[in-house]
């Protein structure tokens, strides 16, 4: 119920905390042309960038983040509608183009709701206040006698007027200085289950994904890229490609050595996608392979493992780890090795680009429309104002579509042919030219005293850093990549975290939950190993390891809370029936991890029969602060559990002589329905600030499976995927 002070336009911009400072509230700065206002007699009221109220009552709300299945178009706009007291049936969601005026639009890091919740509330509350003022003015009554309810302003006398009917008056009223936000107990949509606003279009085939975009005179293109990262074209023979019916042209695409630069290669332009693919396959290209031809997964794993078996760069040190090991009653050590992963969103990377002189229009499934705009403008050496990035639906993203390399290369092709083109990646292109989730080796060593208490914790990790994509040659992690290891929530007096060197030979990128996958895996499996070494029950041992209730000091603005961590762990165990008698051969494994400012635990029931693993049930508990849309959060936890299972079962990208060995879903498998267990999700009730949802469900899954297998069989697996062990 805190009033927001100083809500003058300049103050409002400052106060709402949009990092760019680029948010513009003036209606004149933004036009909703071509949207919801075809009929000429409809008046529009544009009180801020995110809201347009029309005189016919329809309410257009802007989603500034990209929709890739996480439900953001529904969740963000439902927050505005809630504060506005709007009728959800009158809401139309408009997707924002990439533009700095919206503040940060990067749809990754599980941050959309977390960073925009308060802003969206204020956007809605401001409009409600204006409408109340407008109604009070027209009725000549005090504002205090008016309330907003379900798209009407209602006076205490009982008379009421629809939002749409207030547009003409509202346009003359200035934005209020202060707005009162709703008491959470009065929320209508927030904290409830609201179906996706797009469910109709997503069920009848009419939703337009990037690959579905068509513009007049559009050609189709496929690009042949070097099998080794950063290899270049030496020569190309296009004779056979040009013989294929439908192939129009062959052009070279430049390689740009920068984070989101295209890999370059040779593009085949055609009248249809099939001809473009066939033409691409018919090209005869000689390549200058880069130094990355030396990249072989097996030897690379050996080299980074050697780097964690010796001292590395100290990222954090508490107490004296060497003394802890000397004094220990018992020490235990383990090395964990995890392979590269590819995102493999169902919709491959693609983009439609139309370059006309200095002007460029893009339609693409992109998580980072502003980065795309910047990179396209840089490539064309034009001003960003000449570049329009239209964000389509994304057929999955998982981090892959945060990198606009595929838009820049389509821009290069459009420029070369001087017309609109859709560049389509094949699945093979997607698997073999990704920004891969890093490969990792991790060494952990623990000291246990005579009471079974952990007195020392050494964690060394070596993994090619995402920083290498931005700073070629970088071979040590960025500070944030160490944090999920250094922020280990265990109450241990002697603790040391070290990073070993690891150089990158492919493009390294972020994939759903990023560094938390390897760190969450090692920390959770090793804690389970220590429980066994100490002769303790894994749950009781872990709760003691987390220790007393405290707010853990971290370098982040959000602090994590060990009481929440213990609560989600205990609840997941309880929901899974941890204390109950299980069927013969069944066992429950546990994991708990804090990431994207959310506390998540998983308890997974497995059995292993004739050497084959079955997962019977997954129980997940998340504390993500205020839950905006409970159904969406549940869906994200369900999806994250299977995403985690996929990487645990099959996830493995390998390189031989620099080339990726996997190519499609037959050799880069993901989980299918017969292996999908029942997933039970509990969301902790909380009025705290909302925290991340899209990613934090992933890191707990693989370690909980490993811990369950150990409990069921006594066998400890320290590498993934499980298909390598014949378990699946």
């Amino acid at each position: 119920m805190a009033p927001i002070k100083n809500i003058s336009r300049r103050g409002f911009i400052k106060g709402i905390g949009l990092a760019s400072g680029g948010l513009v509230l003036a209606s004149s700065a933004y036009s909703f042309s071509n949207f919801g206002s075809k009929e000429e007699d409809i008046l529009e009221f544009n009180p801020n960038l995110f809201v347009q109220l029309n005189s016919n009552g329809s309410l257009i709300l802007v989603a500034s983040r990209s929709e890739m299945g996480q439900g953001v178009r529904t969740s963000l706009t439902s927050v505005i509608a809630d504060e506005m007291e709007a009728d959800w049936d009158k809401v139309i969601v408009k997707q924002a183009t990439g533009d700095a005026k919206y503040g940060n639009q990067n749809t990754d890091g599980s941050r959309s709701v977390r960073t925009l919740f308060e802003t969206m509330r204020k956007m809605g509350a401001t409009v409600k206040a204006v409408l109340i003022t407008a109604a009070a003015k027209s009725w000549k009554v005090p504002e205090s006698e008016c309330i907003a309810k379900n798209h009407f302003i209602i006076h205490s006398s009982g008379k009421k007027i629809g939002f749409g009917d207030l547009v003409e008056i509202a346009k003359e009223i200035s934005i209020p200085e202060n707005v009162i936000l709703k008491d959470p107990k009065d929320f209508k949509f927030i904290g409830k289950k609201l179906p996706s606003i797009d469910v109709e279009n997503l069920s009848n085939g009419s939703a337009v994904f990037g690959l579905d975009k068509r513009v007049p005179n559009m050609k189709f293109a496929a690009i042949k890229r070097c099998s080794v990262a950063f290899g270049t074209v030496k020569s190309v023979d296009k004779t056979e490609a040009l013989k294929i019916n439908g192939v129009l042209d062959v052009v070279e695409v430049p390689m740009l050595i920068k984070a989101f630069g295209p890999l370059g290669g040779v593009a085949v332009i055609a009248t249809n996608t099939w001809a473009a693919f066939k033409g691409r396959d018919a090209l005869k290209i000689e390549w200058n392979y880069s130094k990355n031809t030396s990249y072989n997964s097996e030897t690379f794993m050996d080299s980074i493992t050697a780097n964690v078996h010796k001292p590395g760069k100290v990222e954090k040190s508490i107490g004296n780890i060497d003394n802890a090991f000397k004094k220990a009653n018992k020490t235990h050590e383990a090395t964990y090795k995890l392979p590269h992963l590819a995102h493999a969103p169902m919709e491959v990377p693609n983009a439609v680009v139309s370059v006309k002189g200095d002007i460029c229009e893009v339609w693409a499934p992109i998580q980072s429309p502003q980065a795309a705009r910047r990179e396209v403008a840089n490539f064309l050496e034009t001003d960003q104002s000449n570049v329009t990035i239209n964000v389509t639906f994304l057929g999955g993203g998982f981090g892959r579509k945060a990198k606009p390399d595929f838009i820049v290369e389509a821009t290069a092709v459009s420029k070369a042919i001087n017309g609109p083109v859709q560049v389509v990646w094949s699945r093979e292109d997607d698997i073999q030219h990704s920004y891969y989730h890093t490969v990792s080796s991790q060494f952990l060593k623990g000291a246990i005293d005579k009471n079974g208490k952990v007195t020392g914790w050494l964690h060394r990790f070596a993994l090619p850093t995402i920083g290498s994509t931005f700073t070629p040659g970088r071979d040590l992690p960025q500070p944030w990549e160490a944090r999920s290891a250094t922020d280990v929530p265990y109450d241990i007096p002697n603790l040391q975290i070290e990073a070993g060197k690891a150089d990158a030979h492919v493009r390294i990128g972020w994939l759903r939950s990023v560094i938390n996958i390897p760190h969450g895996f090692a920390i959770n499996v090793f804690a389970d190993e220590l429980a066994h070494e100490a002769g303790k029950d894994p749950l009781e041992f872990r709760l003691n390891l987390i220790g007393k209730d405290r707010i853990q000091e971290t370098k982040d603005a959000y602090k994590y809370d060990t009481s929440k961590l213990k609560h989600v762990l205990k609840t997941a165990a309880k929901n899974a029936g941890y204390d109950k008698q299980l069927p013969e051969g069944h066992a429950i494994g546990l994991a708990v991890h804090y990431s994207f400012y959310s506390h998540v635990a998983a308890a997974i029931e497995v059995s292993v029969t004739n050497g084959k693993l079955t997962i019977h049930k997954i129980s997940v508990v998340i504390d993500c602060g205020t839950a905006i849309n409970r159904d969406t959060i549940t869906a994200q936890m369900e999806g994250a559990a299977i995403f985690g299972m996929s990487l645990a079962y099959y996830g493995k990208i390998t390189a031989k002589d620099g080339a990726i060995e996997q190519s499609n879903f037959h050799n880069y498998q993901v989980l299918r329905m017969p292996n999908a267990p029942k997933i039970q999700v509990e969301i902790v009730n909380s009025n705290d600030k909302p925290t991340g949802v899209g990613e934090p469900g992933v890191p707990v899954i693989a370690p909980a499976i490993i811990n369950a297998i150990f409990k069921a069989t006594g066998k400890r697996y320290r590498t993934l995927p499980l298909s390598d062990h014949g378990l699946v």
Partner: protein
Amino acid sequence: MPTYNLKVNGEKQVVEAESDTPLLWALRDNLDLVGTKFGCGIGQCGACTVHIDGTATRSCLLPVSALEDKEITTIEGLSENGSHPVQQAWKEVDVPQCGYCQAGQIMTASAFLETNPKPTEEEIKIAMNGNICRCSAYNRIQRAVAIASEKIG
């Protein structure tokens, strides 16, 4: 280029395409029926599933030259206004996350329920095995197929 007479969603269509062009690309690039999706191109993921004479079929491997005289149904032609029981169930359960694979899922489920209107949980899981959902809405897809089965019954 040769031409082929196809019957798509009850309408006759003439498609000018090379004989080896998969139906998927003829639908998407020639007929602008983009509801049928490209996912893998090798019949592994099911995103491109359509009905050929009522049978769920992967359109990414099926050349147009083999399809004259067949009844082809795509997601756009499954029902008027998304009213097929499977689509209704999909909306009730709010199945889609990103939604990209859902046309294929719905086409597989609707053909399956024609042959087995009262499937068991296990039969549903096996029937849907060929359709990957990377967002992994499998629990909900399974539930929606069961609800659709009740609606049909």
